[in-house]
Each structure stands twice: as C-alpha cells, then as structure tokens.
C-alpha cells in the first residue's frame, strides 16, 4: 500500500491523496476474456483510460469501482479491496457510462440525497457546492427528466463529487456533451487533478484524452497496451507508417515524383489510383500538394486508409 501525501497545492491538504492499485487483474465471462492481466497504479492527477470500444475499459472501471469482482488479481484503494467493501465510497466517486438518473427528482434533490446518504455534516451546503462546481445552479430545481444529456451528465458528476472524494472514476464522461460543456468538464477535471485528486476517465476519442490528461493508459482487446505520458504515445502514433489512397489526373507521373520524396516509403500503382505508404504523416501531407503543383498534376482525392482507432491501437500493441 502506498499513500502519497498531497502537495501544498492541494485544495484539502489535510486529507492524504489516494492510490488505486490493480495487480494482475483479469476478468472473464465464460470463454470471453474482457480484461487480461492488467497491472497499473493510479495516483494524484488526471489519467485517461483510452481504447477502442469493446477494449475492456468499462469492465476495468467497474472492477475499480467495486461493481465487479476480478476473476483473478486484486483491485485495492489505499490497500483496501474495492469489491464487497462499501467503505471505499467515502474516498471514491463514480460516474458510470449508463445515463441512469432518478428522473423524478430535481438536480438539487438528487445531489442532496447523495450528500445525506454519505452522512455529510452539512448536506445542504455540500449539495450546493457540488452543483455550483458543475454550473447547474440555474436549473437545479427542475426535474432531471427535463434536462439535456449534458445537464444530466453534469448532475451525475455533482452527485459523485458531493463528498469531495479523493478518487473520481468517470466512464466516457464527455459523451453527449456539446463543445462548451466539454471544455467546462475538462477544466473541472484539470482543477480536481491539480488539487491532488486521483481522476481517471475513459474515452475512445484520442483528442479528448489529449486535451485533458498528460498520462494515459491505453487498452486494446482487454490488455494494457501502453501506459505513460501522452506525448510519447502520441509520437509513436504519429510516426507510424501511414497508408493513403491518392487519385489524380496523372497517377503514373505522380507516382514517379512521390517516390523521390523522403517521407514516402512506397508507392503502388493500381487501376483506381495510387496507394502511398508514408513514414511521416505531417511531412507527406505537406509535400504532396507542392509536388503535384510543381508537376501540374491535380490531386482529386487523398484518403488515409488506416486512420481507424483500432489500427492506431493495434500499431501501439505491435510497437
């Protein structure tokens, strides 16, 4: 067990920061392995849990939050197991992906009920503080059933934050939010992370993770594929070979010109145009227009062929 003391920048320096540990955690359903031997340690700050849909992110989050028993391995919060241990919820908050709220309550009633269930000394003040934090004060007395998806999401975040937990787990928190709400939620997560809270949020969208967190855990097919600083991983992603389909007014002449370009590692001439392999995404996409212009060739289409997240992730696994 490791407990890292919050630094002087922490909002509540009297409460020590919490560490969530996963040691060799696997989870399977019958023959299907959803999470495969994952070991990670989450400390203060914001961490992104990145991976394509079906990678096991939600299963992993559920095990962290004590809503699923690991088939093997252990999930502990400050040394205590999270499974069958409701006491961990004093330090842990969860915003699940499923958009389940008591539609018949108002946001204030909902967050207040959470504060009361946490037995907070001043539930009303805690509820107001949490609602202010997510900027829901204006709509707090309306029934949750009348809210937009983003408002419901913020209400759920307020309820999860009402007891000021050391650890906050969020499953796809940006789903259904408009750009302004996203920015606001990102800023909130940043603030909480800077204040010494351990924040983990899952996402299948690279850009979301890039904007919020410096540290990422990448999951692919149930395994932890990469772990660490986002910029390093991003570099791995951008420097991988890219495949483009190019169609132009003169494919053969363009192929000759492209093969002389250093960023291009291979060109294939087919009936439907060119298939170009480039070692450097940025350098190639900058060079192509110049080369075409110099040769008087018009490029009709340029399509990246392997831009799906799955291909990015599988490249990461291979590297």
């Amino acid at each position: 067990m490791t407990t890292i003391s919050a630094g002087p920048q922490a909002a509540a320096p009297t409460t020590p920061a919490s560490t969530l540990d996963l040691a060799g955690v696997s989870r399977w359903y019958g023959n299907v392995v959803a999470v495969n031997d994952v070991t990670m340690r989450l400390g203060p700050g914001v961490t992104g849990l990145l991976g394509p849909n079906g990678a096991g992110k939600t299963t992993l989050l559920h095990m962290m939050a004590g809503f699923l028993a690991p088939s093997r391995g252990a999930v502990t919060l400050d040394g205590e197991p999270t499974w069958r241990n409701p006491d961990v919820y004093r330090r842990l908050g969860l915003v699940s992906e499923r958009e389940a709220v008591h539609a018949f309550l108002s946001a204030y009633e909902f967050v207040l009920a959470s504060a009361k269930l946490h037995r907070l000394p001043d539930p009303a003040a805690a509820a107001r503080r949490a609602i202010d934090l997510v900027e829901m004060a204006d709509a707090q007395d309306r029934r949750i059933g009348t809210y937009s998806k983003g408002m419901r999401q913020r209400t759920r975040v307020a309820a999860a934050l009402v007891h000021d937990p050391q650890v906050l787990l969020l499953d796809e928190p940006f789903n259904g939010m408009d750009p302004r709400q996203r920015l606001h939620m990102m800023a909130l997560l940043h603030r909480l992370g800077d204040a010494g809270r351990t924040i983990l949020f899952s996402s299948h969208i690279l850009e979301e993770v890039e904007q919020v967190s410096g540290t990422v855990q990448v999951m692919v097919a149930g395994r932890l594929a990469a772990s660490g600083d986002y910029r390093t991983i991003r570099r791995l992603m951008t420097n991988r070979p890219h495949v483009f389909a190019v169609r132009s007014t003169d494919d053969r002449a363009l192929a000759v010109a492209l093969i002389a370009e250093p960023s291009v590692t291979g060109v294939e001439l087919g009936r439907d145009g060119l298939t170009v392999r480039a070692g450097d995404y940025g350098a190639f996409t900058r060079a192509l227009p110049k080369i075409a212009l110099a040769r008087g060739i018009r490029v009709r289409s340029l399509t990246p062929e392997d831009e799906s997240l799955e291909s990015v992730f599988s490249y990461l696994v291979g590297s």
Partner: protein
Amino acid sequence: MSTVSWITARGLFGRRRFLLLLPLPALLLVLAIVSRSLGVDPGQWGPPVLVGLGLAVVLPVVALIVGTGVLGAEIDDGTVVHILTKPLPRWQIVLPKLAVATGVSAATVAVPLYVAGVLADSVRLGLGLAAASALGALAYSALFLVLSLLTRRPVLLGLVYVLIWEGLLGRFVDGTKVLSIQQWVIAIADRIAPTELLGTTVSVPVAAVLTALVAIGSTILAIDRLRSFSVAGETS
C-alpha cells in the same frame, strides 16, 4: 424517514406501474359492497371474494408489483448504482426498501380486506384479515425483493410462484400448501378471527414459523446478494 426509503417511495409512486396497484383492491371492494347490498349470503360470496380474490390474487399481485419495484426497477434502469456508491452497510439499503414495500403493499391490501371482512362477517374478521395480510405482505415482499437480486426476471418468477405453485398446485396437490404464503395468511387470519369462511390444512404454528423464516431468510439473503452486486458486463 431515511433517505433510502424516501428515494424508494418517490421512485415507486413516480413510476406509472404504480397505477397497476389500484384496480385489483378496487375490484375487491366493489364485489364485497355489491354482494352485501344485494343481500347475498356471506357463506356464498365470502370465500371466493375474501380468499379467492383477496388473499390468492390481490395480496400476492400487489406485493409482486411493489416488491420487485423497490429494488428491481432500480436495477433495471441502473439508478441503483447511485445508492450503492455510498458508504452504507447493505442492510441499511435492504431494510428501508423492504419496509417501504411491506408498508405500501399492506396498506393497499389490508384496507379493502378489512372492509370486505366487516361486510362479510364482523369487525373481528376484518381485523384478522388485515393483520394476516400485513404479515403476508412482509413475507411476499421479502421474497420478491430477494428475487430481484437473484434473477433478471423477478416478475416472471414471482408470477410463476403465485399462479403455478400457490394457485394451481395448491389447489390440486395438498402437500404444496405447506410451502404457500397464501395458506399461511389464511391460517393466521383464521386464528385471529375463527370463521367458516376461511379454511386451510396448515396449522397456525407452522404458518407463523414459516412466515418468519421466509421473511428473515429472504432479507438476509438479499443483504448478502446486494454486497456482491455486479454491474452487468457491457464489454463483449
């Protein structure tokens, strides 16, 4: 009122299926009032209305709707996670929910049964039916509450128990009556207000002990199951 019971009650009355509770007790009342006002012999209308409708249908069906609603509905729509992510010992979640389920079922069923009992025979029979059906509401509620933690189809399984086990087998296979909450309720009501209108082969001590066993056993099992509550895996 605890926060858990407050949310449970709001959830119960806020859902449309609560309206399902009203027609059956109303039918029971109407039949009793009409039979009495038409001067029909209570020996003729008493057993089918009090037992056939009241104890065999209204009580278990109302308890089924409410008992599976207090927790099962929250599990179905996922809102149960909000209550479970709190540092509450699980008995502090199960007991308030059981109390709300029992209270609502008992109030919904005992009042019309009391009136029907008074109309059929006496205030004593009314009170006997009301008290016994309240005990029955407790046993049924505990059973249906734990069913919603053991299976994803608690309403279906509950209906199978009520209709097939108590209704069908109870009528033709005498031995099954020993394990029928409906028969225990009849035995207890008959003990409080002995009358020709109620009759069962189950003895009162057996009925009392088994009612307590089902209520307590189901509750303990529900608390334990809730401690191990798993969110269904969404990753495949």
